[in-house]
């Protein structure tokens, strides 16, 4: 009797842990049936390229959400740091400098986010909403609201390929491996789960909770900086009004991928799979030429379902514990 019970629970646990992969497979099968153009190398690589920027940002958001924080400024920071990166590339022709500029600016803004959240105890939602506005305003101000065009070879990192593999995908894969390593194999990674799970207990166990959150913002800063270069490169210019709402796409991928908004739960691979669930759904809707307004409604519904699932599965756990 007991034996059966344990097995049953384990089985359920495995199902709930890997349910997102199951969902991804179901969606891919459905897409393949719905449209013959879906399961082609070209189309799949295209989705990968599109989702790369989202995934890179989403991995940063994931780290933040796991330790109980959040960032709403990512889209604006992509615009601001990306525009400056494009400008500095046009001035010097150095891609290295372009990356450095984007990363440093993004790092700086996320450093401010971190200071507000850790030092001044501002709610992450409000603090990063503020930097979102500041960064967007700054991007529009320095460009006078005009797009920066004629960016030459800046486009290679966003549009080029390494053999058959798009360069953004290469970036994405490398970053995924690094973030996965950081989350699961370093003291900081373990600490993020602890801080998000119960900050007070983490603190009482000698973990510097502020430092953990700050480091998550700095990691996110680097990722957003890289994402900025890839984004501007893919869209062929410095777009001060671009990447609008990218933080929301990233958050969607994160949540769909099983990261819990209450902190302490989430995995890098889940985030990547979550991004592809969203990406494939958008892709099939595009292929089937479904109205873009309806697409937006569908995306909203996906978030609702993901959040309800998260809360439902958790409340079932507490119920079981509660006897």
């Amino acid at each position, binding site marked *: *009797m*007991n034996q059966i*019970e*344990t097995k049953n629970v384990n089985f359920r646990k495995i199902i709930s842990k890997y349910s997102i992969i199951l969902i991804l497979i179901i969606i891919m099968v459905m897409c393949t049936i719905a449209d013959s153009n879906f399961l082609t190398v070209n189309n799949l690589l295209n989705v990968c390229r599109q989702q790369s920027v989202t995934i890179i940002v989403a991995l940063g958001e994931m780290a933040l959400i796991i330790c109980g924080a959040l960032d709403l400024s990512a889209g604006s920071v992509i615009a601001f740091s990306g525009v400056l990166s494009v400008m500095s590339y046009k001035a010097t022709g150095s891609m290295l400098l372009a990356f450095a500029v984007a990363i440093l600016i993004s790092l700086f803004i996320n450093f401010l986010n971190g200071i507000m959240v850790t030092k001044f105890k501002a709610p992450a939602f409000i603090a990063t909403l503020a930097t979102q506005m500041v960064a967007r305003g700054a991007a529009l101000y320095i460009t006078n609201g005009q797009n920066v065009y004629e960016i030459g070879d800046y486009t290679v990192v966003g549009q080029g390929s390494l053999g058959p593999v798009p360069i953004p995908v290469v970036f994405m894969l490398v970053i995924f491996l690094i973030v996965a390593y950081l989350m*699961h*194999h*370093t*003291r900081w990674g*373990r*600490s993020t*789960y*602890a801080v998000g*799970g*119960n900050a*007070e*207990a*983490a*603190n*009482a*166990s*000698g*973990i*510097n909770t502020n430092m953990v959150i700050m480091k998550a913002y700095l990691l996110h800063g680097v990722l957003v900086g890289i994402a900025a270069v890839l984004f501007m490169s893919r869209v062929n210019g410095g777009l001060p009004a671009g990447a609008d709402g990218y933080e929301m796409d990233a958050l969607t991928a994160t949540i769909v991928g099983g990261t819990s908004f209450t902190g*302490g*739960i989430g995995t890098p691979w889940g985030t990547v799979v979550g991004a592809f669930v969203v990406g494939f759904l958008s892709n099939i809707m595009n292929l089937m030429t479904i109205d873009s307004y309806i697409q937006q409604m569908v995306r909203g519904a996906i978030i609702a379902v993901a959040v309800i699932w998260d809360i439902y599965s958790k409340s079932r*756990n*507490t119920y*079981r*514990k509660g*006897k």
Partner: protein
Amino acid sequence: MGAENNVLELSNITKTFPGVKALDKVNFKLKKGTVHVLCGENGAGKSTLMKIIDGVYKQDEGDILINGQKVSIKDPLDAKKHGIAMIFQELSYVPDMTLEENLWLGNWPRKGPGIDWKYIRTYTTELLKKEGLPYQPDVKLRSLSVSDIQMLEILKAVSNDAQIIIMDEPTSAITNKEVDKLFAKIEELKARGASIIYISHKMDEIFRIADEITIFRDGRSIITANAKDITVDQVVEYMVNRKIENQYPKVETKVGKELLRVEHLTRNGVFQDVSFHLHGGEIVGFAGLMGAGRTETMRAIFGLDPYDSGSIFINQKQVTIKNVRQSIQNGIAMLTEDRRRSGIIPILSVRENTTLASLERIFTGGRLHPREEQKLVAESCEKMHVKTANYETPIQTLSGGNQQKVIFAKWLLCNPDVLIADEPTRGIDVGAKREIYNLMNQFALDGKGIIMISSELPELIGVCDRIYVMCEGHISGMLTRDQFSQEAIMQLAIAVHRNEEELAQ
């Protein structure tokens, strides 16, 4: 005794949850105007039964009779209509609302589309006066103490004309003086004809107020007896189904060298001029009323809170402690007061909780060593007798006692010289308490020093070698084992009050 005497009668109540039979054909009778105490280890089924009475759960089988009438209770609101009031272990109120708002919460009398505030004010003022409670109706609940709020919960029950009042460990967070106040109130309620179901682990309390006692074990009601006809030892025996020879297994240890000395430690307005010392092999108790500054002092020594002046010596060397990391490195560990709030990380596994304070031992050279972690966790949890299916289960699924043992295991891994335990046995059943005492003894036998804060005097007297008593932020005295008695401790705990009263006269 006729049936009309039983205000509440439960017969053959059975409740099954997936995989567990929480209640198995339980019978229970509550007589009018009496206090009926329920005892039993955690998980024995007391809370489930109360939740069935309160309509939170529905029984699978069995009947509920109120005043001889068979009833079915759909939800807590329905229970209220049947005259049942539940005063929860964790009090439910909105801290930023006023007393009157909370008192009427969800039940506001209407006047047209709005709320009839005038009626509320008049009625509340009257009720407070009638019950002899010295509060203003517009005071914010945040500014009241736990015991004040508890009184209000009772007031709420009374104002609803409750005939059956259920109290689930009402004294777990209030001082002895406040307990007296509560018990006086209970006597008053009894005199009015209300009946009280009282759940508690504390033996001295139980025998002070109980008319009848029912003991639960493994989902069954084992025995119901008149309080006069049963002894503490018998109650404990029925609860755990084994003879507990000695509730406090004290072992003799060799007192070693001085591990910790604190001199004139002060945090302005919180604690002043606190000096004490601790040797290896010693268990030193800290007694005092709630708010006496015991927890605050220890939190400062552990680096959780700052202190303004004074010095801390560890192994005869002066140290400055600004944060928890430093104190851990200096060989101090602390089991904090509220296990759920600052002890465990509920969603993380037993493994992750165990290594939380010693991450530097498993993340070396910039990477995790999983096998090393497994080894450390297994060693330390086994030594602390943690009972768990495996180390990957979330800690929140363990019982309170086992969670506490995991926290002991966590600190064991840090190899501390000094272990501070703040209310280590609160909310833990009798069997697990004994195990916790044994673990503390084991620490002491290893030559470590232990500081134990507790509000249960019998526990301090049973476990400690010396007891410091704090009162209003000062140490008011120190007692050695031959001087131990509840009276001696209480006198020191209220010493300052008395001096002030004497001065005032």
